[in-house]
């Protein structure tokens, strides 16, 4: 009996210490959405349960190892008892209730984070190797940054251009895969102003680690200002260069090609136009209109030294679109 009392007290102490310790460390990133609040609430209950169960097994285990060890010079075996049906039934049935309770809480929490606000604003998201593109259809804006107004439910309608990706902003908690051939929805209500990042969470290829775009939660006023500014840019960019730049964003070209000279999966575009391209087979050519057109429509035609062309799919763009892109490339010097 004495053993049970000591172990009982130690289990309680250990459970409390474990929980307080884990809580003090701070396990989760900041909460920046309504959905995060609900998820963290359930998570907290789970940490309590984990702390308790850890203590419940770990304490009597360690206690036995210390108290019931064979001491020097001792021979013979332990006490002979083979089981106890009441105990077995107890530790089958009680966990069953715990399981049902957590399943219920899980279902409730899922319902909460999926709650639909009929006034939710919708944004189109396109994922492709290795970047995200955000389209605000009612304003005619296409952007590489996701701007969201605070305290307003947003629904992202997400599509993939190639393989499976997954939309994850750790501060928002929720994660949703983007699957080719279907539209998946991601519902979020940001609650905390700030700059975050969306990171692709499903392995999508060589540059998967770098499939990161900025997410900015603004006040309604700042958000409106940003929309107005982007609309102005969209109108101003009716020049061929402007249209070309927009095309490269829309088609996700910049997921692999930088405009600042740094190297990703594909060559940077800085200073490309008019330069001499060296190929893996030792030949070279001048990057003129014909070469760039070919590189877009049939990337496998040439293997630029140091790069693998098989990672780029062919793009079917009109002559006018390609002319616009070339106009844009000419500006990158």
């Amino acid at each position: 009996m004495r053993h049970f009392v000591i172990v009982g007290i130690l289990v309680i102490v250990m459970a409390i210490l474990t929980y307080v310790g884990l809580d003090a460390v701070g396990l989760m990133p900041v909460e920046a959405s309504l959905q995060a609040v609900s998820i963290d609430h359930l998570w907290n209950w789970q940490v309590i349960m984990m702390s308790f169960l850890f203590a419940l097994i770990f304490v009597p285990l360690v206690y036995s190892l210390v108290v019931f060890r064979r001491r020097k010079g001792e021979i013979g075996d332990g006490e002979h008892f083979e089981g106890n049906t009441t105990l077995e039934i107890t530790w089958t049935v009680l966990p069953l209730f715990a399981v049902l309770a957590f399943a219920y809480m899980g279902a409730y929490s899922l319902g909460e984070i999926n709650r639909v606000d009929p006034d939710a604003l919708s944004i189109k998201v396109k994922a492709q190797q290795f970047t995200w593109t955000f389209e605000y259809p009612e304003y005619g804006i296409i952007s590489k940054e996701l701007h969201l107004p605070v305290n307003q439910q947003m629904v992202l309608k997400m599509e993939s251009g190639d393989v499976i990706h997954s939309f994850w902003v750790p501060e928002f908690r929720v994660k949703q895969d983007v699957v080719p051939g279907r539209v998946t929805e991601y519902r979020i209500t940001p609650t905390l102003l700030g700059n975050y990042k969306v990171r692709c969470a499903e392995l999508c290829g060589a540059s998967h680690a770098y499939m990161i775009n900025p997410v900015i939660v603004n006040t309604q006023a700042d958000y409106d200002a940003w929309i107005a500014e982007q609309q102005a840019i969209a109108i101003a960019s009716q020049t061929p260069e402007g249209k070309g730049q927009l095309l490269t964003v829309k088609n996700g070209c910049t997921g692999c090609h930088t405009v600042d000279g740094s190297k990703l999966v594909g060559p940077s575009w800085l200073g490309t136009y008019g330069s001499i391209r060296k190929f893996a087979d030792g030949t070279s050519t001048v990057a003129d209109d014909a070469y760039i057109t070919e590189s877009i429509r049939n990337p496998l035609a040439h293997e630029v030294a140091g790069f693998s062309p098989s990672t780029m799919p062919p793009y079917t763009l009109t002559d006018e679109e390609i002319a616009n892109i070339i106009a844009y490339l000419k500006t990158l010097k």
Partner: protein
Amino acid sequence: MKKFLSTALMRGLFWQFVGTLLGAGLITGIRAALGLSVTDKFFFTEPAWVLGGFMGVLFFLGGNGSVSDWFKWARGIDTPEHHEERYSGWEKYFNVSLDHKVIGIQYIVTALLLISIGGLFALIFRTELAQSQLQFLTVDMKLFGQNGPQLYNTLMSLHGMIMIVSILLGIAGIINYVVPLMLGAQDMAFPRLNAFSYWVAVPAAVLLLMSLVLGGFGTGWTGYPPLSARAPVGVQMFFLGVFTAGWSSILGALNVLATVIRMRSKGMVAMRMPIFVWAAVATSIIALTATQLIGLSFQLVMFQRLFGMGFFDPAKGGNPVLFQHLFWFYSHPAVYVFVLPGLGVISELLPVFARKPLFGYRWVAMSSLGIALVGFVVWAHHMFTSGMNEYLRLPFMYSTLLVAIPTGVKFFSWVATLWKGKIVFPTPMLFVLGGIVVFLLGGLTGPPNATVSVDLHLHDTYFIVGHFHDTIFGGFVFPFFAALYYWFPKATGRRMNETLGKIHFWLMTPSFFVLTFGMMRIGLLGMRRRIVDYDPALGFDTTHLILTIAGYLIGLSVLIFIYNFFNSIKNGEIADGNVWNSRSPEWQVPSPMPTHNYDQPFEVVGEPYDYGLPGSKYVEFAAPAKSKHITKG
């Protein structure tokens, strides 16, 4: 050297090479005749490599003699029931043997080799992760047609699959060696099938490693299409390798079930079988009936690539999410295939070292079956974020949480077994206890992943990686080492060095805790899994450096083990008696075990784990019989 080159292993590898060239040559010839391209980036075209890889496996098995008895039977030639051993010493292990003990050791040594390769891969990519940015797996480096990040993805994917195959071989090894001895059988039910199951795994491992040099495959071991449909030709070798290794698992499981059903000694009713046998049965039920699904899912992607069948291609009416259902229908139960034998080892060894009966034998036995059966209906918890039908998420949450109940029964029973024992701590017991604590951490971090809304945060993060490694180290790696230390004297008549064993344990265990706690910590804070590089702004650099150091310490501890293992075969302390003072039948006869096991059959006359009950016996050997081998019904 000449002897080594003429072993079945080397003959098999030679014929695999020939078969691969022939198969590839055949397709290349046909393509040339049709006017199609005959060479590609990796010399042969993809269809040529696939047929080559497949024929390589067939040639391996034909060439090394593991199927020759069946061919003889087909031609009407009789072969003796038991082959008398033609080889002795080390040669026995490199040639085809029908003895379950030899096959068990072949499995175990192959598993150790693969664990070393998989571990080496892990250390390579762990080194790259020690710091943010790319240090040596850079975009500019090139190896096997891959740049740094691509090579990282290949190594990370191969680490997963090589380790899975090594685990399957490791449990097959322990089961093969131990189960017939525990049952009192002379061998497995189908000795030739047993040899076949082992030997088919060897060309499978070769195929997996070939994928590394044929452009790799940066898809993860999960191989989700469309990514795997676009990967280099290496992914086909990966698919073929898994497909082939699956045969080993399925046929091995069939053999275990037949052996347990048909070949128990007199008096060994179901509820008097050693508890490890129950675990072997539970794991074999899963392996026999679920493995087909991973083979099938990979085969469908293979056909999508080869023949343009758009099973998972939305442009052709296919569905990428369907693949995930097929894949996880095996690949979730598979983790129970990995851990159930390990948990069985814990339940088997705990009474020996606590000197007390196993608490609640029937409940522990049934909990293994419970885990195995519930395990079949939980697969879609890997797909909570996948975009599958919303309503499916709830039933899978409930079923997944149910796994906690039989698992809990095991933990409570283990603690109650230790309670009021007379506990001793030789090396195998340390690994048993380490296994319990590590598996406890894996078990406790499981239910949060099962509750859908929390999983939407945890999915695809380092938290999952940490949780998974806890379950596998606790459920397989620690018990596997425990089993090797424990049964080593039975196999060799010598024991492994205790001091080195304890160094192995005390080096590996704390390092492992650091590794998985660190993984889970940064996973919660935003570290994704399967990335070659991470944002320095996240502030994970220090943690990752510590994780890398911990990884190296684990590697070092395993090297110490491997040295101890091979050194003790020749130089270990002689231990031919009942080293651990166990009641199990295999320890009642001198070690090492003779070729056809027990000279006299035994009869079960009591409970297996009645430690502390004076005068009780588990088995009684019959008086020396007149004729040596008694045939059983």
